[in-house]
């Protein structure tokens, strides 16, 4: 295989440059890489801390999150239950206009928490369609699948509000963390002008360090390869300061981001 | 009895002997006895900074030989001290005997303000200055020797003086040795901004610890007929009220 020959040569060049004569790669690898199965006491402690959090710990995290979110223009809204979120989205749809075109539509993930909002019913009154960005690829041939994908993509392009959940939320940086899954299309949080996310308070972590520790050292959280093929982190709506360092929100991604945190 | 061996770097020796004089006057007042090895020349920094390490090493060997027997060496320049302390050992990477001698002499070479504050723990120099002072942080002194609080502590104990910080006191003045003559436009743009910050501070005098920077600042002020006094910290600290003993 060409790629392999080329990799072999590349590595030989590196070893020559490093002045490494004997190939003790395995030994060096053992010294460099930490093992997911072998957390140090600090890491074990972090996992335990996360798993033993109680109600008031979460309230502290929500406060922290709300504070950090303000300068990022991320609207964090703690709510009691799913019904409140659903109501808020109905209001949002009433008050806002689509950015591209005139027809209002909403796109969402196929996710238990998002499904529980029952947006289809809630938005029936306004006659606003709610699309679920998903298709069942079982038994599909290539042509059918690419058609299904095209349909989902068009729904995401056409919708002006995208509703998602997230795997985690990091309070310290006001960051939503999403590991990609087939029922959780990436562009739902990207193409629509407004992104609405809904999570439960138990999904809040303190910071990146907690996230990484959990992803790597917690067997309940870990993917087979530590991370899936793709993961996204989102801290606030899209922004730029490329013209005279003036901060403008809504560069390429969503112009606004609402995060509902269910507290009960 | 406190004793210091003076290393008076070339700029002060040749161009600003009054700075050396001020240092002597100050030390006398503080009861520090002094000697001045007459064979001293240049620390080699100009050559080192331009890449001429073989030439710098010659100067370094001469410095080491000249000052090796001194217990405490004091120099009114942060960049010369940084040269001795940090760069001499680098120069002798392949000459271990010289390297050790360099490290040894480097440990005993101090910049004036770190000597007064860190070594002697002096709290009062009995200095007097009637006016407002601002301070320029020389790059090598602040970043390579970590000396920034010491000169400020010394300025703050000067009676009669008001101290004001200028904007960006630790931004380079644009001297940079050969840089200032090789790239005069860039160097000038930098000193222009430094002078603006000095003027904006409202001080009537700018104090520093390195005549390289002060020569640059003073040269610009003089050319543009700007009236701000430029003082080495030794001059400030040597100053007393008329009639004081």
């Amino acid at each position, binding site marked *: 295989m060409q790629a392999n020959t080329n990799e072999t040569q590349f590595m030989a060049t590196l070893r*020559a440059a490093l002045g*490494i004569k004997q190939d003790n790669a395995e030994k060096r690898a053992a010294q460099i890489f930490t093992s997911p199965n072998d957390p140090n006491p600090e890491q074990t402690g972090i996992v335990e801390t996360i798993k033993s959090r109680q109600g008031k710990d979460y309230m502290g995290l929500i406060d922290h999150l709300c504070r950090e979110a303000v300068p990022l223009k991320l609207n964090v809204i703690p709510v009691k239950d799913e019904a409140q979120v659903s109501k808020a989205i109905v209001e949002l749809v009433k008050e806002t206009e689509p950015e591209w075109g005139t027809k209002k539509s909403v796109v969402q993930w196929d996710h238990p928490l998002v499904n529980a909002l029952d947006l289809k019913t809630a938005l029936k009154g306004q006659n606003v369609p709610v699309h679920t960005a998903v298709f069942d690829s079982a038994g599909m041939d290539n042509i059918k699948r690419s058609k299904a994908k095209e349909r989902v*993509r068009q729904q995401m392009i056409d919708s002006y509000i995208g509703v998602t959940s997230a795997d985690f939320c990091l309070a310290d940086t006001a960051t939503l963390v999403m590991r990609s899954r087939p029922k959780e299309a990436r562009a739902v949080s990207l193409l629509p002008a407004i992104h609405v996310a809904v999570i439960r308070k138990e999904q809040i972590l303190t910071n990146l360090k907690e996230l990484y520790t959990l992803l790597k050292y917690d067997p309940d959280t870990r993917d087979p390869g530590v991370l899936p093929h*793709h993961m996204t982190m989102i801290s606030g709506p899209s922004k*730029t300061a490329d*013209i005279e360092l003036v901060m403008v929100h809504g560069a390429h991604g969503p112009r606004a981001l609402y995060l509902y945190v269910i507290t009960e | 009895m406190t004793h210091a061996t003076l290393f008076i770097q070339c700029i002060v020796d*040749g161009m600003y002997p009054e700075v050396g*004089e001020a240092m002597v006057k100050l030390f006398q007042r503080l009861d520090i006895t002094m000697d001045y090895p007459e064979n001293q020349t240049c620390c080699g920094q100009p050559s080192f900074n331009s890449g001429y390490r073989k030439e710098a090493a010659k*100067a370094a060997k001469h410095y080491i030989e000249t000052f090796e027997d001194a217990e405490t060496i004091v120099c009114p320049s942060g960049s010369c001290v940084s040269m001795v302390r940090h760069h001499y050992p680098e120069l002798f990477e392949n000459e271990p005997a010289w390297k050790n001698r360099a490290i040894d002499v480097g440990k005993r070479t101090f910049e004036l303000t770190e000597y007064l504050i860190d070594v002697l723990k002096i709290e009062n120099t009995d200095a007097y200055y009637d006016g407002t002072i601002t301070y320029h942080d020389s790059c090598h002194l602040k970043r390579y020797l970590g000396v920034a609080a010491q000169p400020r502590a010394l300025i703050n104990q000067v009676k009669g003086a008001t101290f004001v910080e200028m904007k960006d006191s630790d931004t380079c003045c644009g001297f940079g040795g050969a840089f200032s003559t090789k790239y005069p436009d860039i160097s000038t743009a930098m000193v222009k901004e430094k002078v603006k910050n000095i003027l904006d501070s409202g001080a009537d005098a700018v104090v520093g610890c390195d005549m390289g920077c002060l020569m640059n600042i003073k*040269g610009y002020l003089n050319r543009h007929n700007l009236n701000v006094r430029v003082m080495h910290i030794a001059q400030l600290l040597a100053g007393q009220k008329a009639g004081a003993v």
Partner: protein
Amino acid sequence: MNHDTATKKYVQNSALAIKDEILQSALNKIQSGLGKATALSYQNLDEGPPLRLKAHEIREKTINNLDVVLTRLAAKVRDNGGKVYFARTDKQAVDYCLKVAQQHHVKQVVKGKSMVTEEIGLNPAFEAKGIEVNETDLGEYIVQLAGEKPSHIIAPAAHKTRQQVGRLFEQKLGVPYTEDPPELTRIARKALREKFLTADMGISGCNLACAETGHMTVVSNEGNIRMSTTLPKVHVAIMGMERVVPNLEDHDILFRLLSRGAAAQKLGGYVSYIGGPGGPEFPDGPEEFHLVILDNGRSRILADPKFREILCCIRCSACLNACPVYGKIGGHAYDSTYCGPIGAVLTPLMEGMNQAKDLCLGESLCGACKQACSVNIDLPRMLLELRYRLAYGDDQWETKPVSVVEKTIHQAWALLAGHPALYRAVLTTFALGQKIFPTSKGMITKMPGPGAGWTKSRDIQPLSQTPFRKRFKKLNAQKADR
């Protein structure tokens, strides 16, 4: 370009930049705003600024074992379903990207902001094959429309005013003139959304890869990189071979420092971890992911122990925001892909020391870059090292001695420094000889030769007729008398 021409160009470009008031105001804004905010953001780290030292250790360990780390990265990316290509040269990297593009009949590319694609000249190569390449970072887009080059690693169009951008958009996009940044941003948003939706291929750089998980991470605040790496069918990422860390724990530290160094943020707005394509069951995302790992002169740097440290750089650009020289001359004066202090070290190593000598000579060695560096790289040490190689020449780097005259001057000075009597005699002679120069208020106003640069804008103190060495004895005796 011969070396003298290069110097002339550097000097001229700097002089022009210094006179450019728009640029000066932009540079001032970057340094006084972003530069200071970054310094403060290091202070606010949970671990404090010493985290930079820890980060340096991680980077050093990685670079010293780069073969092992890259082997793991490649294996893991392949496990994730991605393809990995190792490119020795810029040409190999470009050719590989073109090959992928041709396999997929690509007509239009959207590109996330990346310095490494500037380095390998990707855009012109694609355009030569009739493939449209659209820069999608707003700053890069502006620069591309204007036919210019980026002037800052993370704020590429920092040198342009809102009025200039307004006129540019009016001209190139046929929209009515406006100088309102939100409106200008909206215009670009609209124009580029079409490109995102129709592009067949996305190209990105890589901010930092993590070997153990087999991912590269890309960061943007605009969302353009998410768009470029989510919507097209194929995604090719190009990374300089050093932009990797072994473990997630290391990534945590480096990544937080990267965000702070780049934009004084705790974390970049959008971060994508990309290891491979999704399977057929995924509704979106590219169907193919290629990672190109580039050498292009880096292994030569790796082989030189004195310069290896520069490979620790994660291109956060914090050094640009602190360097007083960059703060005066801006990015274009450097005339190379990488500008500022990082460019001053890297460009001579990549493009030739003689060719790019002014970049390392034209720095004042103030040390602000090291202090600003998110991973505490000793840039001044390497500037000095480059000057050393230039002074005597260096066969391994095909470097010739920079100046015979200069060398002779330093040899003469060294001779004096070693001979005190001669030193004293010569300085006394100089003190007498200088009387021929014109003076004002006791200072010399005009000097010939190397001094001419100085006296262009400054006076200089003449040598004293009674230097300190002639005064000390008498001064010291005064005390004894008392």
